[in-house]
C-alpha cells in the first residue's frame, strides 16, 4: 500500500532529513511513527502527501510511484488520504456539519451524496448531537472528532494523524484512540505520528522509530521506547 524505497530527503547540503529509508506499510495496518522532534517524522508525512519530493528514491502508493506523477494529479492522490492535525484546523465560521460537508463539496460531490454521507460519519465519530454547533462551542476532544470525521468522509484508504492527541487531556486522548482503532477496523490504514508514550505502549501496534532520518526500530506490537 505505502512503500518507501531508499528514500533520501535533503533540505540543505549538510542536513539530511531522511536518509536511505526503506519501509513498507500494508493495507489495513495501524502504525505509530515515533522519534524525537526533528527526527524526520514530519518529513515522512510531507513526502507521503507530496507536499515535497524526495531528493533520491521512490515512494509508491497503491503500486504507483508518486514521485513521478504530475502536479495536476496531486489532488487525486490526496483524495486517497485523510489528514488530522494536532491543532484540528476546523473552519470557525462553519458548523460541525458544514465543516464536514465542505470537504466533500470541494471535491465536487453531489449535494445528495453529501446529505447522505455527512450524518453517517458524524454518527460514526459520535458527535451527531453537535452537528449544528460551531467549533468554539465544542471541547478539544469533540473538535478532534470533527476533524477526524472530515478526514474520513471521502473514504480515504489511509488516515494520517500528526500528533492527534497532542492538545488533549489523557482521558479524551484515549477516546480519540478508540475512535481511530474503530476506523482502522473498518479497513482504513492508520499512520499516526506521536509523542504519547502511554498510548503507544498500551495500543500494542506496529511502531516505527525514526532518529536522524533513519529507521532505528520497526516492531510489530512495539512500545514507545523513549523516556519522555
Amino acid at each position, binding site marked *: 500500500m505505502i512503500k518507501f524505497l531508499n528514500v533520501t530527503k535533503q533540505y540543505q547540503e549538510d542536513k539530511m532529513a531522511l536518509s536511505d529509508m526503506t519501509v513498507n506499510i500494508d493495507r489495513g495496518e495501524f502504525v505509530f511513527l515515533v522519534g524525537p522532534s526533528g527526527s524526520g517524522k514530519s518529513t515522512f508525512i510531507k513526502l507521503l502527501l507530496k507536499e515535497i519530493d524526495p531528493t533520491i528514491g521512490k515512494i509508491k502508493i497503491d503500486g504507483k510511484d508518486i514521485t513521478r506523477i504530475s502536479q*495536476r494529479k496531486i489532488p*487525486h492522490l490526496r*483524495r486517497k488520504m485523510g489528514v488530522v492535525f494536532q491543532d484540528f484546523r476546523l473552519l470557525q465560521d462553519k458548523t460541525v456539519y458544514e465543516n464536514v460537508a465542505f470537504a466533500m463539496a*470541494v471535491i465536487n460531490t453531489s449535494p445528495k451524496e453529501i446529505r447522505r454521507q455527512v450524518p453517517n460519519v458524524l454518527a460514526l465519530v459520535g458527535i451527531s448531537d453537535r452537528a449544528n454547533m460551531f467549533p468554539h462551542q465544542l471541547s478539544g476532544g469533540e473538535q478532534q472528532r470533527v476533524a477526524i470525521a472530515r478526514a474520513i468522509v471521502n473514504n480515504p484508504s489511509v488516515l494520517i494523524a500528526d500528533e492527534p492527541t497532542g492538545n488533549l487531556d489523557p482521558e479524551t486522548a484515549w477516546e480519540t484512540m478508540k475512535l481511530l482503532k474503530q476506523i482502522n477496523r473498518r479497513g482504513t490504514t492508520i499512520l499516526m505520528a506521536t509523542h504519547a508514550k502511554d498510548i503507544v505502549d498500551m495500543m500494542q501496534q506496529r511502531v516505527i522509530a525514526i532518529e536522524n532520518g533513519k529507521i532505528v526500530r520497526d516492531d510489530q506490537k512495539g512500545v514507545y521506547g523513549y523516556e519522555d
Partner: protein
Amino acid sequence: MAMKTRTIIYSIKQGIKGSWRNRMMSIASITSIASVLMILGIVFMIVININSFSEITKGQFDTIQLDLEDDLSDGDMQNIGKSVKSIDGVKSVYFLSKEKALDNMKKKWGENGYLLEGLQKNPLPNSYVVELMDMRYADEVVKRVKGLQGLEEVRYYKDLVEKILKITDFIRLAGLIVIGVLILISMFVVANTIKLTVIARKKEIGIMKYVGATNWFIRCPFMIEGMILGVMGSAIAIGVISFGYKYVFDLITQKVYVMIAVYMVPAPVFIKSIAIIIAVLGIGIGVLGSIISMRKFLRV
C-alpha cells in the same frame, strides 16, 4: 456537466463574498480599473479622431497649388499650364482664377463671408491646381515646377500631411505607453485586493488542498472576484466615456464648429468599439490580477 455548474455557482458566490468582505479595497480596485480605462478611452478618442482627421486631410491636400505672378499675360499663363501638364506624374491641371478663388473663400467662410466684401482689390493670385497621379511623384514634380518662370509660390501640403501623420504616431505611441503602465498598476491594485481574500481564506485553502480539491477549483472563486472588479470598473468607464463623447460630439455639431465635426468619428461608431475594448481590458486586468495574487499561495 452538473459538476461544472455547481463549481461555477460556488465560485460566483465565493467571489461576491470575497469582494464584499474587502469592500474598501474592492472600491479602490474598481476605481483604479475605471480610471485606467477612462484614460484609455480618452487616448483612444484622441487617436481615432486624429486618424480620421489625417485620413480626410490627406485626401484634401493631395494637390500642388501654383500661384502665378500678378503681371503675366494670358499667353504666359497658358504656356506655364502646358509645361506643367507635360511633367511625368501629373494627372491634371486646372486653372483657378483669382476671382474664382475669392468666391471659394467667401463660401468657405460662410456667414462671415461679408467681411471679404469690403476689399478694394482682390489679394488672391491666379493659380494652377495640379493633381498628381500618385503622392510619390510629389517631390519630383515640385522640383521641376520650381524651375519654371512666372511662378510666385508653389504651395504644397505634403509637409503638413507628414507632420500630421508624425503627430498621430507620437500620440498613439505615448498613449500606448501610458496605458500600458496604468494597466500594470491597476493589475497590482487588484492583486493586492484579492490577496486580502486569499489571506482571509488561507485556512480554507489549506484544507481544500489536503482533501484533494483541484487547483482550478481553489482558484476559480478568486478569478471570479477579479472578474467582478473588472466588470464593474469597465461599466463605469464605458458609461463615463460614452456619455462624455456624445456630449462633446453634440456640442461640436450643434454649435459653430461644424467644420470640425466633419472630421470626428460619429458617437455610435466610437462608443461601440471603445465599449468592447474597455470591457475586454477591464476583465483581463481583473483576472490577471487575481492570478498574480494567488501564485505564491497555490504551491503545495
